C-alpha cells in the first residue's frame, strides 16, 4: 500500500503539469453571500479617463459601476467599504498572455515509442496552424494563474493559445466566473502570429524564418482567395468546380471579418521595421507585440499608425551566464535602453499597452513597468498602458479600462501608489465580485544566500532517478518566483521563499485528484538545496544543484570514488 502511494507520488512528479483530466472547478473565493451592491467610500479614485478624485465614492451595482463622484449616493442595499487611505484604480489588463488556458495535457499514448511525425511538405499542409482555437473556448478555471494574476491586480487578460505560426484567436477575458463562459468579455479580438519554428533544420516545412514568413504570406493569400472564390461560387454554383474548404482559411476569414487585430511579433529594430512592412503587405489591421527596441523605431511606428503591445520582460543578462562571456555593445545598449521604449513610444504618439511576456509573478509585472517610469514614462501613461489603452486597442473601451459610470466593475484597491514597491493590493473587484487579497506567506528572516538561477533537481522514485529543472528568481526579501520544468511540461511557482537557510516553493499541477500543490522545502547551504518534495501527504527526498557547479556533497562523493 505504502509502496503504491509512493509510486503514485512518483507518478505525480514525473507528470509535471499534466492536466489530462480536469477536475470540478474549485470554489471561488468571493466572500460573504455574494452581495451585488458595493460602495467604496472616501477613497482616492483614479478613473484614468479623467483626473483623480480625492475623497470620492464608487458605487457598484450588479457587476457594473453605477456611480462615481465626491457625493455619489450610496444605495441602502450596498455593502459599504471604508476607502479612507485607499486608492481605487481600474482593474489592470495584461494585454497579451495565455493566463486562463492551463498547460496542455500531453497527447494520449505519450511514453510509448515515438512515431516519426508527419512532416509538412509545404504550405498546403498547414503546419503550425490552429487559428480556430480561441482563448474564449479554452479558458479553464483549473488554471491557477487566474487567481495569481487577480491577486496581483489584474482583472482582465487578452488571452490567446500558444504554439505554431497561427496559434489561435485572442479573447478579452475577465478573471472571475463560475463557468468558463462567464470569463469572456469579447472574442475574437486578435489573431496572434509567431515566426518561431520548432523542428530545427531539415524538419518539416517551414524550418526557418525565411520559410515561416513565406508560409504566412501564402496563408493570407489563400484566405483572401477563399473569401472571393466562395462568394463567386455561391452566386452561381452550376457548372463550376467547388472551391475546397480549408479550416485555416475559414477561421481566419471569420476572425478578420470580426475586425480582429493581427498581432505581429517584433522586438528589435530589424524586426520592428520588418513588421511595419509585413502589415502593409498583408493589408490587415495590425498591431505589434514585443516592441522593446521601440526607442530606435518609435517615429516610424507612429508614421504607420500601428499600436504596440510592449513586452515587460526586459532583456537581461542570462542567469548563470558564463562570466567570461562579453556581450556586444549593441546587446548592452539594448539591455540598458529597453525600458525607455514606452517613453519613446509615448513621445512619438504611438498607442501602446503592457503585457507580461515571460514574467511569472504579477508583482514583477508592475516592477517592470516601474522601470519604464524610471526611464522617463509618465506614471499616468504607465497606468493607461495597463487599463484604458489595451481596452481601446482591443475594442472594449466602451465596457472597461476606466472607472466610469456604466462600465464593468473591474477595480483594484490599493493602500498606495500602484507602482510603489511597498504598496499592497487590498482588494480586487472583477465584474463586481469582490476578492480580498490574501497576504502571501512572507519569509520571516532575511534570506541567507540567493536562489536565483537554474537548478537541477534530482530525486529517486521507485521507478528510478528523475530530474527536473527549476528556474528561480529571488527577491531581496527572500520571495521566490519562477518555474519548474519536468520532462512533461512547465509549472509556475505559486508561492516560495528563502527564510534564513530554510527554503520552500510550491507549484500547482493537475492530477486525477484535481489541482494539486507540490511543495519543495528544506535547507539551503549556500550552494545546494537539500530537502523533500511533498505532494498529497507523501514525500520524497531531493537534492538541487546548479548545473555546471559541483556541490560540496557531490564533490566528496566523487572524491570517495
Amino acid at each position, binding site marked *: 500500500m505504502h509502496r503504491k502511494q509512493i509510486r503514485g507520488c512518483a507518478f505525480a512528479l514525473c507528470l509535471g503539469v499534466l492536466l489530462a483530466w480536469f477536475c470540478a472547478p474549485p470554489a471561488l473565493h468571493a466572500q460573504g453571500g455574494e452581495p451585488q451592491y458595493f460602495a467604496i467610500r472616501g477613497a482616492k479614485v483614479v478613473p484614468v479617463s479623467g483626473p483623480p478624485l480625492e475623497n470620492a465614492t464608487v458605487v457598484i451595482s450588479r457587476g457594473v459601476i453605477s456611480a462615481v463622484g465626491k457625493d455619489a449616493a450610496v444605495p441602502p442595499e450596498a455593502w459599504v467599504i471604508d476607502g479612507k487611505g485607499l486608492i481605487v484604480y481600474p482593474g489592470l489588463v495584461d494585454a497579451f498572455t495565455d493566463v486562463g488556458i492551463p498547460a496542455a495535457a500531453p497527447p494520449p499514448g505519450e511514453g510509448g515509442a*515515438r512515431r*516519426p511525425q508527419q*512532416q*509538412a*511538405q509545404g*504550405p498546403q499542409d498547414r503546419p503550425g496552424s490552429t487559428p480556430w482555437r480561441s482563448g474564449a473556448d479554452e479558458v479553464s478555471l483549473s488554471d491557477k494563474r487566474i487567481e495569481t494574476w487577480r491577486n496581483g491586480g489584474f482583472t482582465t487578460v487578452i488571452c490567446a493559445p500558444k504554439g505554431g505560426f497561427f496559434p489561435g484567436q485572442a479573447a478579452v477575458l475577465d478573471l472571475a466566473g463560475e463557468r468558463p463562459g462567464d470569463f469572456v468579455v469579447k472574442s475574437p479580438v486578435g489573431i496572434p502570429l509567431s515566426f518561431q519554428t520548432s523542428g530545427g*533544420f*531539415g*524538419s518539416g*516545412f*517551414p*524550418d*526557418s*524564418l*525565411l*520559410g515561416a*514568413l*513565406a*508560409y504566412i*504570406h*501564402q496563408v493570407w*493569400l489563400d484566405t483572401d*482567395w477563399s473569401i*472571393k472564390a466562395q462568394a*463567386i461560387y455561391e*452566386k*452561381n454554383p452550376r457548372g*463550376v*468546380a467547388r472551391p475546397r474548404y480549408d479550416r485555416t482559411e475559414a477561421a481566419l476569414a471569420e476572425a478578420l471579418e470580426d475586425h480582429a487585430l493581427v498581432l505581429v511579433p517584433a522586438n528589435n*529594430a*530589424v524586426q520592428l*521595421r*520588418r513588421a511595419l*512592412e509585413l502589415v502593409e503587405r498583408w493589408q490587415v489591421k495590425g498591431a505589434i507585440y514585443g516592441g522593446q527596441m521601440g526607442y530606435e523605431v518609435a517615429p516610424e511606428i507612429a508614421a504607420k499608425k500601428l499600436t504596440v503591445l510592449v513586452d515587460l520582460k526586459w532583456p537581461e*543578462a542570462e542567469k548563470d551566464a558564463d562570466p567570461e562571456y*562579453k*556581450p*556586444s*555593445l*549593441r*546587446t*548592452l545598449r539594448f539591455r*540598458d535602453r529597453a525600458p525607455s521604449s514606452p517613453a519613446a513610444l509615448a513621445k512619438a504618439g504611438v498607442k501602446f499597452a503592457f503585457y507580461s511576456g515571460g514574467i511569472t509573478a504579477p508583482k514583477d509585472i508592475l516592477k517592470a513597468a516601474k522601470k519604464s517610469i524610471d526611464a522617463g514614462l509618465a506614471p499616468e501613461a504607465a497606468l493607461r498602458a495597463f487599463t484604458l489603452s489595451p481596452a481601446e486597442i482591443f475594442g472594449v473601451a466602451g465596457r472597461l479600462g476606466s472607472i466610469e459610470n456604466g462600465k464593468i466593475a473591474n477595480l483594484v484597491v490599493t493602500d498606495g501608489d500602484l507602482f510603489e514597491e511597498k504598496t499592497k493590493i487590498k482588494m480586487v473587484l472583477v465584474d463586481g465580485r469582490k476578492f480580498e487579497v490574501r497576504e502571501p506567506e512572507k519569509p520571516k528572516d*532575511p*534570506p*541567507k*544566500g*540567493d536562489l536565483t538561477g537554474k537548478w537541477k533537481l534530482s530525486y529517486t522514485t521507485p521507478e528510478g532517478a528523475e530530474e527536473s529543472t527549476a528556474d528561480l528568481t529571488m527577491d*531581496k*526579501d527572500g520571495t521566490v518566483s519562477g518555474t519548474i520544468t519536468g520532462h512533461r511540461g512547465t509549472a509556475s511557482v505559486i508561492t516560495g521563499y528563502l527564510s534564513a*537557510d530554510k527554503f520552500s516553493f510550491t507549484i500547482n499541477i493537475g492530477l486525477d485528484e484535481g489541482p494539486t500543490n507540490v511543495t519543495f522545502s528544506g535547507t*539551503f*547551504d*549556500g*550552494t545546494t538545496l537539500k530537502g523533500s518534495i511533498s505532494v498529497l501527504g507523501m514525500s520524497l527526498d531531493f537534492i538541487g544543484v546548479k548545473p555546471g557547479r*559541483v556541490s560540496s556533497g557531490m*564533490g566528496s562523493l*566523487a*572524491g570517495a*570514488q
Partner: protein
Amino acid sequence: MRIPTRLNAGRTLLSFPHILSFLCFLHFPFSANAATPTDAPPIILIQNATILTVSHGTIEHGSILIRDGKIAGVGQSIKAPAGVQVIDAAGQFVIPGIIDCHSHIAAESINEGSVSVSSMVTMEEVLDPDDIDIYRDLAGGVTAANILHGSANSIGGQTLVIKLRWGQPASRLPFEGAMPGIKFALGENPKRSNFSIPGQPKRYPATRMGVEETIRGAFSEARDYKKTWDDYKKRVTAGEKNLIPPRRDLRLEPLVEVLEGKRYVHSHCYREDEILMLLRVAKEFGFKVRTFQHILEGYKVADELAAAGVGASTFSDWWAYKVEAYDAIPYNAALMTRRGVVVSINSDDSEEATHLNQEAAKSMKFGGLSHDEALKLVTLNPAIQLGIDKRVGTIDVGKDADLAIYNHDPLSAYAVVQKTLIDGRVYFDRERDIAGRAEIEKEKKALTEKLKAAEKKPEEKKPEEKKPEEKKLPEKKPEDKPKAPTPTPTPTAAQAGAALGGAQ
C-alpha cells in the same frame, strides 16, 4: 593551395542554418560610420592616387571627383570645386569597390531546408543590417554582394544584390534596379550526401538524377501555372463573368519569372556532368542560367559555358573538402577566362570576403592572368554577372562612386584597405575605426557596470540594514558564497583532468 580544414564548415555547412545568423545579433561593435541617408552626399575629391580604373588602364597621380554619389570626373587634371571634401590618397591605390558574387552575410536566416523546392522564400525579407560581417567585409573593400539562399535545395530561395550600406536599415540595403535572382543547387548538398538528420526519413531527391527530375518537375508545374493564369486573363478579357480566379502560388511565381527572363538563376554546382545537365534542362524550358557558382570543374566544360553565355563564379583555390570538390584546380578561373567565359572569384564566406583582392591575385600565379584581368575577377566581371555593370565595376564617369582605397597595390599581399566608399559616402575609414575603438570599450565598460549595479542594488541594501544580525554569525556567512560565483573544480576533477592530459 590552401589546406581545406576549415572548409568543412565553410562549404558544406552552408546547407545548415548559418551559425552566423544566430551570432550576428551578439557581435555589434558600433553603429554606422556613415551619414544618415537623408543627408545629401558630400562632394569629394580623391587626389594624388594611383587609379586602377579596370576599364581604361591605370592613372598615376590621378583624381576622382564625386558628386551626388556618382563619379563626376576621373583623370590627372581635375579641378577641385569650392567646398569640396578632399581625400589625399598620395601613395595609395583606388579600385572599383569589390563585388562578391556569392555571399551569405546580412541575413537572419539562410536556408529553408525542409523541401527541395523552396522558391517561395526570399532573402530580402530576412536582411539583417546589423550583421557585423557587413562592416568587416566593407573593411575588405567589398561594396556589393549577391546575397544567396543556402544550397540545401534543388531550387532554393529568391536572392538579391545588396550594397554594404552599414548602418542603414534593411530597406536601404538592396542594390536599386538590380535583377532579382534565385538560387539553385546541384550535387551533394541538395541530395544530402554528406549528412542525415536523425529520426527523419531521407528527403527526395537522393541522387543527381533526382535533382534533375526535381528541377524539371518544378518548371513543368510553373509552365502549367502560367498557362492557367494566362487562360484566366484571356477569359476575363473576353468578358466572362463570375470566374473563380486561380490561386496564387508563391512557390511557382518566381519560377514563372525565370521563364519570362525576369529573374536570374544562380546555380551552385561542382561537377561537369551536373553543369551540362542544368544547361540542357534550361534549354528545354527556355530559360537562361545566369551564373554557375563554385563550378570547380568549370575548366572541363569551359567551351560549353562560353557558348551558352553563362557566367562562372568560382573559388580561388579551395578543394577536396568533399568528394565532388576533388577535381578542383587553382587554374580554374584563368582557364575559363582564356576560353571566353566571364569569370568571377567569390567568397561564400564572410571572412574570405575580407581579402577577395588576394584571392583574385592568385590567378596571376596560377594561370598567368594579367594584373587587369585578375582585378576584373572581383570587380567588373561579377558586375556583369549580376547585371549591374552599367552602375558599378569600373571607375568611369557616371558610375556609382563605390570605391576601395588601398595603401598598396590591391593585388599585393601587403595591401590594406584605408577607406571604402559607397554612393560617394565613406562607409569604412580605417583611421576612424582605430580611433573609435577606445570609445567603444569605454561605453561597454560603463554600460556593463551600470547594468551590474542595477541588478545588484536591491541585494546590497539588505545586508547593510541587517548588519548587526549578520555579525552574530560571522563564521557561517553563507551569503558570501553566491557573491563569488567562480566555480572551483574539485581537486579530484582537476587531478583527473591532469592525469588525462598527461596520458595523452
